[in-house]
């Protein structure tokens, strides 16, 4: 259906801004906002990654003293020895920052904002002002999260899952004071920002597509971002409700989550009757869909990058779209698999197990489609392709771990062990991170008009991939062996003595992983200024963003928006002398067969 009500985003009637502030700081241009999100996410990644280094330092050498670190963290590392509460703060903030302020920021805020209007053929998002607002709400959220380290008591220490009573009582642990409150405020701002972005994504994809761009001609990236935004809009609010209730429990004396008869040093008398389980349900009602919010865009990006480097269409486009929709729907009704050992009725557990294992089906369809997309292709092993391929392997490996955890019976043994840590790091650490890298190497030319250095890129990949597997595959076995999550040291447990050397290996691999990212950072900034200049379509790809200049001007195209005649994966099309047919090529020039 065609309508002329919304003219491709307000930029149609917008004048291009002139001042530096309006062009690069308070800009409503989706491309600027996308890059702002991306860069902010990368900065937060440095912090969150740094926290991981400290975690691994502690776990590998729990008896060691680090006098240098005592100078940086006088409270947490007094005498050079890490105290357990500080360890919990590291773990909490590493998780929180990575999930919300790195992956979500870069994949959805960064790539989502940058690519959606370009790939659907619009001049900007549906609500550009709201878009700008969403970024400038995230910035204080970042400051609040980072600032929480420096308040009395330090950052929140109740895990990224923030379970009460630990998070509900200000006296419970260092960090449960101001730090936890700041965590809740930072999350509230994050959710507000996500809501604004989510509205933009959903409306832009539904309403601002160029002529000829039907829903089933959308690139997989757009589908995945659209679905992720829709999930997020529906799943985040219960966490908002829970966060409000937790703030009330902490500061206003209510008892939503605090039970009666709880001893904490002295008897707590003013709270009572609440249940921590309520928090768990509300948190995981978001928490599970959240991981699909993160992983679907990663998978969508892979489906766009792979065909450009196999020179053939992806396998099963429709199947993949339907699978993503199915995953989205199912993801809303399986949250209980995070709570199998919370005391729930085994019948309820059985329901959640069956539903969880059902998600395996569309997930495998997607994974197999990725592999089948490679079959018979003339593969070009460029850096983006390497990261996309790495991503495919991580999805498979990590997904297998999900079978053990989704099953209520085996999960009883594995819950809260490093098996879980290994599993989710492969998925929302590995698949998403590799997608971020793949996407950056792939779209950097479009964003900045220059190419990233290929040799440095390949070095980055070949260091990152083995390091990643060393760390997180090993952790699956550590989990089997009984190593538990969120413990700051294991040297007191005799049964874990034999596997401590694997912790050392994991930590060394972590330092290698961290160092490898310096190569990426150097490549990024060096190429911004000295990289080879990029043409409009350096990868000879078919989707609409490649029909705009690199980088695209304000309004993305000249006076005429693109008109779409075919689906996004016409590679090696019969009747075309080139091995790719952009979406704008008319049927008269090349027949439309798909």
């Amino acid at each position, binding site marked *: 259906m*065609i309508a002329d009500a919304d003219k491709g985003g307000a930029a*149609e009637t917008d004048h291009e801004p002139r001042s530096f502030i309006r062009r690069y700081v308070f800009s409503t241009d989706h491309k600027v906002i996308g890059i702002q999100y991306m860069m902010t996410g990368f900065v937060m990644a440095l912090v969150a990654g740094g926290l991981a280094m400290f975690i691994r330092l502690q776990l590998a050498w729990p008896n060691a003293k680090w006098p240098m670190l005592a100078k940086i963290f006088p409270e947490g590392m007094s005498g050079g020895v890490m105290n357990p509460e500080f360890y919990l703060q590291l773990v909490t903030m590493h998780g929180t920052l990575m999930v919300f302020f790195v992956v979500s920021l870069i994949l959805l805020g960064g790539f989502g904002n940058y690519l959606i209007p370009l790939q659907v053929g619009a001049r900007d998002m549906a609500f550009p002002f709201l878009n700008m607002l969403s970024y400038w709400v995230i910035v204080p959220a970042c400051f609040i999260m980072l600032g929480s380290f420096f308040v009395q008591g330090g950052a929140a220490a109740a895990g990224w899952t923030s379970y009460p009573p630990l998070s509900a009582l200000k006296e419970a642990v260092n960090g449960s004071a101001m730090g936890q409150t700041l965590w809740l405020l930072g999350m509230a701002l994050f959710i507000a920002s996500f809501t604004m972005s989510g509205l933009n994504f959903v409306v832009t994809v*539904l309403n601002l597509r160029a002529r000829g761009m039907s*829903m089933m001609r959308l690139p997989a990236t757009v589908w995945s971002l659209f679905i992720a935004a829709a999930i997020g809009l529906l799943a985040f609010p219960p966490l908002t409700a829970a966060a409000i209730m937790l703030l*009330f429990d902490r500061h206003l004396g209510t008892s939503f989550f605090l039970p009666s008869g709880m001893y904490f040093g002295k008897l707590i008398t003013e709270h009572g009757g609440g249940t921590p389980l*309520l928090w768990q349900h509300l948190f995981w009602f978001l928490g599970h869909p959240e991981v699909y919010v993160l992983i679907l865009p990663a998978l969508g990006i892979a489906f766009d990058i792979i065909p450009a480097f196999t020179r053939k269409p992806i396998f099963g486009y429709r199947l993949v779209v339907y699978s993503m929709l199915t995953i989205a729907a199912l993801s809303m009704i399986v949250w209980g698999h995070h709570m199998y050992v919370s005391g729930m009725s085994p019948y309820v557990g059985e329901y959640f197990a069956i539903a969880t294992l059902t998600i395996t089906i569309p997930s495998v369809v997607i994974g197999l489609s990725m592999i089948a997309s490679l079959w018979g292709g003339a593969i070009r092993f460029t850096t983006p392709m390497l990261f996309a391929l790495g991503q495919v392997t991580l999805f498979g490996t990590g997904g297998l771990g999900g079978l053990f955890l989704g099953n209520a019976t085996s999960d009883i043994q594995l819950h809260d062990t490093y098996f879980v840590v290994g599993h989710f790091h492969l998925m929302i650490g590995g698949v998403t991170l590799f997608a971020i890298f793949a996407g950056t190497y792939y779209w950097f030319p479009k964003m900045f008009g220059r190419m990233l250095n290929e040799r440095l890129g390949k070095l980055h990949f070949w260091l990152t991939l083995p390091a990643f597997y060393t760390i997180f595959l090993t952790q699956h076995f550590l989990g089997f062996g009984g190593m538990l999550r969120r413990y700051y040291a294991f040297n007191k447990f005799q049964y874990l003595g034999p596997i401590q050397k694997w912790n050392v290996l994991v930590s060394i691999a972590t330092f290698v992983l961290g160092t490898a990212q310096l190569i990426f950072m150097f490549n990024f900034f060096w190429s911004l200024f000295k990289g080879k200049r990029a043409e409009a379509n350096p990868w000879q790809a078919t989707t609409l963003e490649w029909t705009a200049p690199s980088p695209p001007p304000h309004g993305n195209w000249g006076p005429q928006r693109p008109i779409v005649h075919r689906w996004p994966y016409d590679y090696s099309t019969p009747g075309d002398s080139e091995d790719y047919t952009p979406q704008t090529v008319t049927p008269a020039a090349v027949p439309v067969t798909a």
Partner: protein
Amino acid sequence: MQEEIIEQETSLNLSSAQLGLWAFIATATMLFAGFTSAIFVRRASADWRPIPVPSLLWLTTAIILASSITIERARALSKAGRRESLRRWLSATAGLGILFVVGQLGAWRQLVALGVYLPSNPHSSFFYMLTGAHAVHLLGGVLALIYLLVRSLNGKSTAPGTKDLALCATYWHFVGGLWVYLFIMLFVM
């Protein structure tokens, strides 16, 4: 220069503003769905003591229902192009909205007079929290109405002002319906 034909693919016959509003309404609904599940769970505890209905709530409920009628009247007048009368009914709606919030605060004071505060018992906790959350959403609607009023006073809005008013009305009915739902959840069930 050839004029660009602005054509677009759209899936549903809704403007971006309409779609955006419905998506926002879905989000807000999920917020109160979260609160709903919380109240059901909490109600099962042994320490649940129902609080009495503050009498002012009957009045505020009537006010908010009346405000839905006034905004519908405004919408009808806007369609008919009767700008003057429209402004009166818009103001009436905004006024009733503010009166509603004042009434809710009065209901809070009625409870305080009985010694029932936010942390007194779980039912009171939900009452204060839910009325507060609802009032925040309603005040957002009032702000939108004031914005429309100011624009219409400036004389800048043309007939398409009907569209914006229709959006406001949709949101307003949502907030009104939400109140009725919360009232039932808190005191009838």
